[in-house]
C-alpha cells in the first residue's frame, strides 16, 4: 500500500500501526459499525479514521489516511477542461440525482444518503493486477494534486448539467494499481448496504451496481476520479467518497461510492446492461444519432440553469469527440451503442 504519498508519513512512522493490524482493524470497524469503532479508535489514535464527530475521541486529530468528510473544502487547480456554458446550480447538482440505491426519485439520494457510512472506506483492488489489496481513498488519490474539471454531464434520460468536479485523472489512479498486461477491462463496483440504502429493497437493478470500461477508455485523458464537486469533498448523494466521471458517456456509466476496482481480461457485466441489454449497451457513449429505444437522444434538457430548462442539441460524444473519437475508430457505433 502506498502510504508514502501522505506528507505526514515520516512524522508518524514511529506510531503507525503495522499494515496487517491496520487492515484487520479496518475490517473490524466495518463490521462493528461507527459506534463500535469509537472504542477501537481510542486504543489506536495514530491511525484513527473517524467518520462522524461523535465517534472521535475529544481532541483527536484526523490522522494519516483519513479522507476529507463530505462537504470539507478542497484545494484544486483549475484546468483547461472546462465547458464554457453556465454551471448548473450547486443545489441542482446535489439535489437532482440518480443514485438508485437510495430510491428512484431524483430527490431520494439527497433525502436518504445521509445514513451512508463513508469513512472508514476501503476499496478492494482485485483481478489482473500486481498490487491487489485494500486501499483507502488517500492511497488512490493524491490530494496535493487535485484538479478541477468542468464537464458536461449527460444523463441517458436526455438531460444535462455542467458540473465542476474535483479529482485526479483516472490514469493516475490506475498507474498506482499496476494492472497486468492481461487486463483489458476494468470494473467498478458501488458500495452496498441494505441498512443504509432504502432503494436496494426493490429489485430495480441487480445490486451491487457495477460498471466497466475498456482499459484504453479508462486511461483516456478525460476519464476522471472525482472526490469532490464545487470545491468541496463529494456529498454522499453524489457518490462520496470517490466516484468515476466519464463525460463522453451517459451518466450511468459512472460509478458512485466505489468499493471495488477489478481488472479483467474479459468485458465485465454492467448493471444497466443486465437490466435491459437492448436499451443500455456496454459503451453507452453519448450519441445523438442512436436513440434510446424509448426516447430520442437528439436533444437534452438543461438542468440547474436559470429559467425553466431550455433544450439544447446533444453533441456527438457529448462534445468530447476530439479526445475520444479515436477510441472507437472503425467501430459501428449503432451496433456498439
Amino acid at each position, binding site marked *: 500500500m502506498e502510504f508514502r504519498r501522505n506528507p505526514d508519513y515520516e512524522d508518524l512512522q514511529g506510531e503507525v500501526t503495522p499494515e496487517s493490524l491496520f487492515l484487520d482493524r479496518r475490517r473490524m470497524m466495518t463490521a462493528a459499525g461507527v459506534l463500535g469503532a469509537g472504542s477501537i479508535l481510542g486504543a489506536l489514535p495514530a491511525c484513527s479514521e473517524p467518520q462522524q464527530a461523535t465517534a472521535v475521541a475529544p481532541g483527536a486529530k484526523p490522522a494519516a489516511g483519513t479522507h476529507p468528510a463530505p462537504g470539507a473544502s478542497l484545494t484544486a487547480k483549475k484546468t483547461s477542461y472546462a465547458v464554457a456554458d453556465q454551471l448548473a446550480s450547486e*443545489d*441542482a447538482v446535489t*439535489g*437532482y440525482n440518480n443514485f*438508485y440505491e437510495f430510491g*428512484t426519485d*431524483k*430527490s431520494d439520494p439527497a433525502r436518504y444518503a445521509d445514513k451512508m457510512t463513508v469513512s472508514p472506506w476501503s476499496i478492494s483492488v482485485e483481478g489482473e493486477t500486481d498490487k491487489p489489496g485494500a486501499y483507502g481513498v488517500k492511497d488512490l488519490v493524491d490530494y496535493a494534486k487535485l484538479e478541477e474539471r468542468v464537464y458536461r454531464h449527460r444523463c*441517458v*434520460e436526455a*438531460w444535462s448539467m455542467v458540473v465542476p468536479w474535483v479529482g485526479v485523472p483516472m490514469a493516475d489512479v490506475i498507474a498506482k494499481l499496476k494492472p497486468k498486461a492481461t487486463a483489458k477491462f476494468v470494473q467498478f463496483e458501488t458500495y452496498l448496504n441494505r441498512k443504509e440504502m432504502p432503494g436496494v429493497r*426493490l*429489485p*430495480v*437493478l441487480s445490486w451491487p451496481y457495477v460498471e466497466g470500461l475498456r482499459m484504453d477508455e479508462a486511461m483516456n485523458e478525460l476519464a476522471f476520479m472525482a472526490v469532490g464537486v464545487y470545491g468541496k469533498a463529494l456529498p454522499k448523494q453524489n457518490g462520496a467518497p470517490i466516484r468515476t466521471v466519464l463525460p463522453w458517456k451517459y451518466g450511468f456509466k459512472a460509478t458512485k461510492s466505489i468499493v471495488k476496482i477489478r481488472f479483467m481480461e474479459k468485458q465485465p457485466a454492467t448493471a*444497466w446492461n443486465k*437490466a*435491459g441489454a437492448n436499451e443500455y449497451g456496454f459503451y453507452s457513449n453519448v450519441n445523438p444519432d442512436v*436513440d434510446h429505444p*424509448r*426516447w*430520442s437522444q437528439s436533444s437534452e*434538457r438543461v*438542468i*440547474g440553469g436559470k429559467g*425553466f*430548462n431550455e433544450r439544447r442539441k446533444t453533441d456527438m460524444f457529448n462534445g468530447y469527440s476530439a479526445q475520444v473519437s479515436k477510441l472507437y475508430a472503425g467501430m459501428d457505433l449503432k451496433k456498439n451503442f
Partner: protein
Amino acid sequence: MAKAHSPLLRTFGKRWLKPLTLAVLLAPLVYLCADWISAVNGGPHDLGFNPIQTTHHFLGETAIRVLLATLAVSPLRDITGWAPLALVRRRIGLAAFFYALLHLLVYVGLDLQWSMPDLIKDVVKRTYITFGMAALVLMLPLALTSTNGMIRRLGHKTWDRVHWLIFPLAILALIHHFFAEKGLQPGPVIHAAILILLLGWRLARWGLARLRPEPVAAS
C-alpha cells in the same frame, strides 16, 4: 340489494358527496398551479430542478390514479351497497380524461414546443407513446358520450358497449406508464396490481353470475 343506511349518510350522499368529490378531484390541479405560481415568483415549490418533467409526470400519474378510482366506483358500490356512489362515477371519469389531456398538452406544448412533426415521429416510433396516445384517443368517445342527453340518445345498451372501452384503455395507459419509466419501478407495478384487482373483481362476479342458476328459473 337495497340496504338501509343512516339518515346522516343519506344526507351526505345527497348534499355533500358530489361537491366533495369535485374538490378532491381538483386538489391535484390546484396544488400544481400553486406550485407553479410560487416557482414563477421565485418562491418555494415542489417542482424540483426539472419542473416541466415533474409537471408532465405528475399529470400523467394523476390521470392514471383517477382512472383507477373510476374503475373502483362500481365494485365499491356493489360491496357497500351504497347507491349514491354511482352519482360521482361520471365526474371521476371525466377528471381522468381531463388530467390525461393536460398531460398530453404539457408534453406537446412545453416539451415538444408544439412541433407536430416531432409529435407524429414520437407516436409512430416510440411504442410507449403509441400506447399512451391510443389510451387517450379511446377516452375521447367516453368523455363525449358522458352527458345525460347522450346516454338517452344512445340507449343504455349502446352506451354500455361504448363505455366498456375503459377496460382496454386502462390497460393501455398502464403499459404506457410501465414503459415510460427507466427500469422496473414501483409506481406502475402498484397501479397494475390495483387494476388486476379491479378487473378481477368484475371477472369473478361475471363468472359467478353464469355459474349460479338464474333466479327466475329457480322460482
